[in-house]
């Protein structure tokens, strides 16, 4: 707890730098990640992240020191090379994109591991800490490292904001962008360069193994909250920032802990919560909507059933037993009972001695469903020339969906037909008909 207060009071300048650096890194990769996400290139980010490892090792082998600028250049080169190779393999052979991504990712990473273990076994004293690029170490973000990595992140953020409109266009509608004369190829080049740069800067805090998550996860989480790109970028940046600063905190309190996994775990938790509870797109909300639709369909089917029964014996007030209903149309007993109770509460049915009858309100509603069903059957036979014995099932579905506007259009288009293809009368509202 003391650590927490001390850390978040930001009195220690070191803590300030580490925290600011991690947040900046996380934000820049979250922003770039939004565009790779929208372009459906999320896993390419994973490949790039793994592929920078041999670059870092080669740069170290050639230069003999851990100067961040040199390492970044090395990482950048192999990251780029990986992208070019994936594209080349996919375009010029029968190998599919997912295979070439996985291939390049694992082979480059393997080469990186081979080089890294070689360097470790060579006994070179300067190499200690090189392996922190694997799982990240936010606390190491001090001195020149901090300056270099933060400046690149800043550049990334600025470029994304400058090219906001262009990137948005090529992410959503590449063909349109081409047709109005956008330099699409060049813009994509800028975007891929940004992706590689985002990976390269993130590795100090998150590490190469899990860097992909910093590109994919904030964007995926943000997508559940909004349909607007600008809002999505802001939400992704916030998620990134939260996880970045938590990573810095963990790295500060538990120096032995790798930072990357913690940052990723935190951002993933934010994402999982988003997947479930986000309004409109969240899984809970979707399930709720499905449940409501099911309930409405059941309600309408029951009312329709009552109306059809009352058509047969021409008695709309007659009370009916469960068995009577079941004989006309089998509905699962449990759902039927539940539906009846619900309709009773809503005032569409009245209930006496375990017998149920339509109220005036229920009669109107049931009549409408029956009318829509039969109108649709007429429409299908008349306009789409479908055989009368093939139209019933489709009408069973559409009767719950047709809106009042469509209902009116259908009525006037068909000129208020009297009978459906099976020669049952189509019931209209008698009050309206008199007018």
């Amino acid at each position, binding site marked *: 707890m003391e650590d927490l207060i001390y850390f978040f009071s930001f009195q220690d300048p070191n803590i300030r730098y580490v925290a600011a650096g991690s947040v900046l890194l996380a934000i820049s990769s979250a922003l770039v990640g939004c565009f790779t*996400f929208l372009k459906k290139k999320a896993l390419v980010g994973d490949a790039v992240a793994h592929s920078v490892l041999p670059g870092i090792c080669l740069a170290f082998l050639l230069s003999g020191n851990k100067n961040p600028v040199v390492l970044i250049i090395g990482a950048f080169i192999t990251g780029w090379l990986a992208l070019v190779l994936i594209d080349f393999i996919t375009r010029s052979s*029968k190998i599919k994109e997912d295979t070439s991504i*996985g291939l390049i990712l*694992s*082979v480059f990473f393997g080469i990186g591991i081979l080089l890294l273990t*070689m360097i470790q*076994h060579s006994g070179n004293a300067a190499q200690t800490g090189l392996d922190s690029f694997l799982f990240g170490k936010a606390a190491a973000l001090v001195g020149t490292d901090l300056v270099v990595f933060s400046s690149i992140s800043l550049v990334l953020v600025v470029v994304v904001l400058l090219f906001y409109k262009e990137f948005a266009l090529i992410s959503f509608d590449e063909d349109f962008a081409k047709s109005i004369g956008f330099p699409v190829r060049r813009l994509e080049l800028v975007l891929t360069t940004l992706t590689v740069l985002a990976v390269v800067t993130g590795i100090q805090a998150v590490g190469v193994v899990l860097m992909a998550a910093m590109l994919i996860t904030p964007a995926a989480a943000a997508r559940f909250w909004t349909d607007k790109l600008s809002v999505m970028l802001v939400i992704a940046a916030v998620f990134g920032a939260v996880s970045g600063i938590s990573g810095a905190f963990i790295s500060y309190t538990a120096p032995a802990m790798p930072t990357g996994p913690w940052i990723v775990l935190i951002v*993933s938790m934010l994402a999982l919560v988003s997947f479930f509870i986000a309004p409109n797109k969240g*899984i809970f909300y979707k399930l709720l909507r499905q449940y409501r639709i099911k309930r409405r369909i059941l309600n309408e089917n029951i009312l329709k059933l009552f109306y059809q029964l009352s058509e047969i014996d021409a008695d709309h007030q007659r009370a009916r037993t469960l068995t009577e209903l079941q004989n006309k149309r089998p509905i699962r007993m449990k759902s039927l009972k539940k539906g009846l109770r619900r309709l009773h509460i809503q005032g569409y049915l009245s209930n006496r001695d375990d017998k149920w009858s339509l109220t005036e309100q229920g009669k109107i509603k049931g009549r409408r469903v029956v009318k829509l069903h039969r109108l649709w059957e007429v429409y299908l036979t008349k306009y789409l020339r479908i055989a009368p014995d093939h139209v019933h099932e489709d009408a069973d579905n559409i009767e719950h969906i047709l809106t009042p506007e469509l209902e009116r259009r259908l009525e006037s288009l068909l000129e208020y037909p009297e009978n459906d293809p099976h020669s049952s009368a189509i019931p209209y509202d008698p009050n309206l008909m008199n007018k």
Partner: protein
Amino acid sequence: MDAIYIITTGSLVAIACGLLGCFLILRKMAMVGDAISHAVLPGIVLAFLISGSRDSFTMLLGAGAIGVLTTFLIEFFHKKGGLQSDASIGVTFTWLFALGVILISVYAGEVDLDQDCVLYGEIAYVPLDLWIGSNGIIYGPRSLYISGVVLVVIILFITLGYKELHLTTFDPAFASAIGISTSLWHYLLMSAVSLTTVSSFESVGAILVVALLIAPPATAYLLTANFKKMLWITVALSILTSATGYYLAVYLDGSIAGAMSTMAGLFFALAFIFSPVDGLIAKRRRQLYETSKN
């Protein structure tokens, strides 16, 4: 003797991975294989913590179950959540892998596992971990037996289910028309992949397993258009990868698993350029021939 033990273990692991990889890449599921191999990590660590040892079959089963769970989660987020499939893969495996690494760090004292093992396995120590019978007879390295048993299981799975696997891979519509459940075989294949990645974990680590799953089958795919031949070529390539990888690692004094992936990549590059069927050179020649004919 050590070299033979290591190369044999490596070959057994590589063949099991490669055979399954052939199905994966043709089903366009290479990245799902990648995801599973990462995601089984927390399962392995938890099984360690619970059972306290490495060599229990419960561990294989437990971690295998997590692999299947991963496939399920990926599909759940994709279908129920409407998340695009590449992002669904990316989110799912990264957080499970992160969880695994954290568990290892937190229980560092109790779990005989470290980050290095996660990254590139411990195939070099295979000859040290011997299986000693109750009467003191040394039967040889334990990993050798484990990977041997897993390979036998995988071969049995593929030969017994060959028709179903083949049909659901190449013609899923026809397969379901004649009553083969595509989703059942999908999950069976995923279980097999999980089992293999878990058993390979000790030898080559969670990430480099992907190289063995994808690279040899992709190479074989460039060399033939016949699926059975592709399986055989994969087997040969897997053995070759294991042997050459070992000697490269010895020569450079580096990780054996890393060197195996490097060699697998090199073989792919060779096939990509020189394959008589689909190689760059063959294609260029054909092009030249076509243009000269016109």
